[in-house]
């Protein structure tokens, strides 16, 4: 919070200064700054969605166009409308608003449109979503051309009062910066950024990815609509071409060059591209340098922008500012000290309610392959169950089915007596099922604290951010990683990253915790210390733990009960000692010949 305020405050000061200086000089500098502010608003809007969700959008210029046309119709003098838009429906033909009123109406309209479109787009992943946004741009373009009575089709739309001045543009840009930064640092922004870094893990930590995407999509459409209103009222005349590929390209260039994940990046990108565009635009008409007239080279501007993108991507593919805000980069340490929550006694985790998780006859097909075959498994509170089996026996698949990452083909899962078979991972997370992943799936660009906070914010019942923060402290402390809380998660050692994963799952206050190879890559001391921690977790909080690992000594010492899978089937279940001697288990691990040797050794 403090960070967001300082971060935006810095920008606001710079922008107000720039606006004051430009206002004094006037002329083309002033106009350039107005266009810059409008571009910045658009880029910030696009960044709210693309930056936080990681999905590039080509469609936002469509929202900008809708904003420009609708607000233009609303502010255009009625006499002008009668001449140029003779076929407007009466309620629009006679409507006349000032800029503020028209902006509000246009933004609300665009957000409603975005909501409808977003319901579809938020269901799609990665490039499918991006291509759909491209389709959106083409469709909106087509609709604007088709709606001749409202837009004059592809002809010039003119007669819009030119009321966007430096003050209006600067105020809106400041507002856009505030909204973008505060959204990013909000609970919603944090959850969405988590899903950007790892969608699967975010789902398993209870983030409803679709809903978060939809929210950011609608907010970003609203911001971009403001940019549309302003550009329309700055130009006074425009055509549908203004809201198509050329400008999409220019704005995406700003977004990508600066780094789309941050507000700082949006500002840097908008500044750089605007500067270069303005210079090239002046140079391409031919200028006098020291009495020498340069030739006219029209078209230089687009080539210049293209080259900047190429260069930026080749040198810094995450953009100039990577994934840090300026305040985080410059004042990061200071905030870390300020924000560290002091409290020597973290709140005690209430023991989880009694209950059980019961999976019966789970079968999972991958095409023709039967990965799980009639697997049944029970897990109770205060119980640590080991799940072992050779590679490819279906252990991880079983965890994925139980945690809702994959749907089961057959069979059902009950939590207490509730059937949860059809629930998604984020719903199951809400029910108290936490998990870690075999190959570490942390939210790599977030700090350790933020990683854990994403889960804490999704624990059920919902808690305030203050309580969530306390839970984060508790989870960090339980896993002994409090000292790393402000460190970017991806920079930690392997063993500590595993601990962050467990802390993150703990913050969900899980009743059932699934650990997928938590000791992989750890040395003996680390493994031992982890085991101690797991045992004390189970005692302290009373959750049931299902643990998958190849480290058989660990499993044998930690677990009261062991389930052995082979080729998707349960081949043994029981106390570690018994299972260890089961000939089927030995055969599964060592093959038929090896199992005979072991049997001989054991019988001796």
């Amino acid at each position, binding site marked *: 919070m403090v960070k967001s305020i300082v971060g935006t405050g810095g920008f606001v000061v710079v922008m107000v200064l720039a606006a004051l200086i430009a206002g004094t000089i006037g002329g083309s500098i002033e106009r350039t700054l107005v266009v810059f502010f409008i571009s910045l608003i658009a880029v910030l809007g696009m960044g709210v969605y693309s930056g936080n969700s990681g999905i590039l959008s080509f469609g936002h210029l469509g929202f900008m166009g809708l904003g420009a046309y609708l607000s233009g119709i609303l502010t255009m003098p009625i006499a002008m409308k009668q001449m140029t838009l003779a076929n407007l429906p009466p309620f629009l033909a006679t409507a006349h608003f000032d800029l503020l009123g028209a902006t509000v109406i246009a933004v609300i309209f665009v957000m409603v449109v975005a909501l409808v479109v977003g319901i579809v787009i938020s269901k799609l992943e990665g490039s499918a979503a991006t291509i759909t946004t491209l389709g959106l741009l083409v469709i909106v373009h087509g609709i604007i051309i088709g709606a001749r009575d409202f837009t004059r*089709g592809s002809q*010039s739309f003119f*007669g819009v009062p030119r009321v966007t001045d430096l003050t209006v543009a600067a105020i809106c840009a400041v507002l856009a910066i505030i909204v973008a930064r505060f959204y990013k640092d909000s609970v919603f922004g944090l959850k969405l950024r988590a899903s950007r870094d790892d969608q699967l893990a975010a789902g398993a930590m209870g983030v409803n990815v679709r809903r978060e995407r939809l929210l950011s999509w609608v907010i970003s459409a609203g911001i971009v609509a403001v940019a549309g209103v302003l550009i329309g009222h700055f130009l006074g*005349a425009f*055509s549908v*071409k203004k809201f198509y590929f050329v400008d999409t390209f220019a704005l995406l260039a700003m977004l990508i060059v600066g780094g789309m994940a941050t507000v700082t990046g949006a500002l840097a990108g908008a500044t750089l591209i605007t500067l270069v565009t303005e210079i090239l635009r002046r140079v391409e008409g*031919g200028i006098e340098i020291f009495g020498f007239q340069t030739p006219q080279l*029209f*078209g230089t501007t687009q080539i210049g922008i293209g080259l900047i993108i190429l260069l930026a991507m080749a040198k810094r593919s995450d953009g100039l500012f990577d994934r840090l805000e300026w305040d985080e980069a410059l004042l990061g340490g200071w905030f870390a000290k300020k924000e560290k929550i002091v409290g020597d006694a973290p709140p005690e985790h209430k023991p989880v309610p009694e209950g059980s998780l019961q999976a019966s006859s789970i079968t999972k097909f991958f095409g023709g392959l039967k990965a799980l075959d009639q697997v049944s498994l029970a897990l109770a509170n205060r119980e640590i169950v080991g799940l072992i089996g050779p590679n490819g026996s279906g252990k991880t698949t079983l965890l994925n089915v139980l945690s809702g990452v994959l749907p089961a083909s057959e069979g059902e899962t009950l939590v207490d007596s509730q059937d949860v078979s059809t629930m998604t991972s984020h719903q199951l997370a809400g029910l108290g099922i936490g998990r870690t992943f075999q190959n570490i799936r942390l939210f790599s660009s977030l700090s350790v604290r933020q990683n854990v906070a994403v889960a804490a914010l999704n624990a059920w019942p919902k808690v305030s951010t203050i309580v969530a923060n306390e839970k984060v402290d508790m989870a960090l402390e339980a896993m002994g990683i409090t000292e790393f809380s402000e460190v970017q998660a991806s920079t930690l050692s392997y063993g500590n990253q595993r601990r962050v994963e467990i802390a993150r799952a703990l913050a969900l206050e899980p009743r059932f915790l699934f650990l997928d190879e938590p000791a992989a890559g750890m040395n003996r001391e680390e493994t031992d210390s982890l085991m101690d921690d797991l045992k004390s977790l189970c005692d302290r909080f009373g959750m049931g733990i299902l643990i998958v690992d190849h480290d058989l000594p660990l499993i044998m010492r930690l677990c009261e009960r062991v389930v052995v899978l082979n080729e998707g089937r349960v081949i043994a279940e029981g106390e570690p000692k018994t299972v260890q001697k089961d000939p089927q288990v030995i055969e599964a691990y060592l093959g038929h010949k090896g199992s005979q040797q072991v049997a001989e050794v054991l019988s001796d």
Partner: protein
Amino acid sequence: MLKMLKLATCAVALLVAGTISSANAGDTLTIGLATGQTGGLAPYDGPAIEGFQIAVDEINGAGGIGGNIMIKMISKDTRSDAAQTSIAAQELLEMGIDILVTPSDADPAFAAAALATDAKVPAFSPAASSPTLPLMGGDFMFANFPGDNVQATVSAEWAYGEGFRNAYILYSPDTQYTTLPLYFSDVWKVLGGTVAGEGTYVMGQQDFSAEVTKIKALNPPVDVIMTAAYEPDFPAFIRQLRSAGVTAQVIGSDGIDSPTTFSLGDAGDGVVFSTAGHALPGSALEEFNNKFKATYGRDADTIFAAIGYDLMKVIEAGVLAAGSTDSVAIRDAVANLENVQGVTSVITYKGTTGMPVRQVSLIRVKGGDRELVAQPSPTASLVPAPRMQ
């Protein structure tokens, strides 16, 4: 970081230099050109500004307008886009230009017209032919080309005189200019002809099979087809029309006054179109074309180069009549100009709303070359009133 600072300083210096160096000096007429040097209007604005440049060089070479007012040009590319035209025009007007030249199509020109009128600076579109442009663009907006309604009247009267009676019109509502056939339709009906059908297209659509099928199915067959389609639509349309076996007379307008039209082979042969002039042997236009070739080393193969030249002649006449470079005085003088001798025509603004009275030439494409059909004057009472469509 230091390097970036230096770069940024240079950049800002360049920006500031760009604005200051353009300040206006005493005996100079500063003309700002915001035209489409790239994009869809480049085939028209490109040659127009080349022709304009020839006139400027001639006048400056002779010591300036009236021997003492030198002409200075500041050029900006509008990328054939309305929004960019608005920005370029604002910049030029802020630099204190005396005259603004806008793109050759009415649609982007509208974006500049309101700005010029607000700034009280006369604005001219080299080749926009929509009569609504000067009418609605304000008192300071002038065109420089025979109006769509005038061209349509000339074409209709000629076609009726040739004995055609059953017409079909093909237009696109995408721009003002491409709706020219609607004027033709008006005149045609007044003359007593029938309009058997109307077809529309989207600019750039390329596939005209639906329209061609519709035309071919008409009974009785149409004997004349009027369209204002231009590149790339017109070549596509005429090829598909002819290969479907439709032989009706096709009439176009100035948009197809380009080299492409003369290189269409059999498909283009016989097409008649209206334009702003024709280089008869010994004419001023022929002389200009020679000058163009001498300057640029290639043929001026459209009328638009000469149109650009004529535009500068109109401005020169306006400045001479005004006796100063005062923008308002120039505007008033231009509005009262009569019989300015251009290379394409004699040009008169007096008594118009900014759409000049000038000659219309009807050209036939014959064997890949131009053939003058007629240079008639339209019957004044038949010319439809300008309207937005």
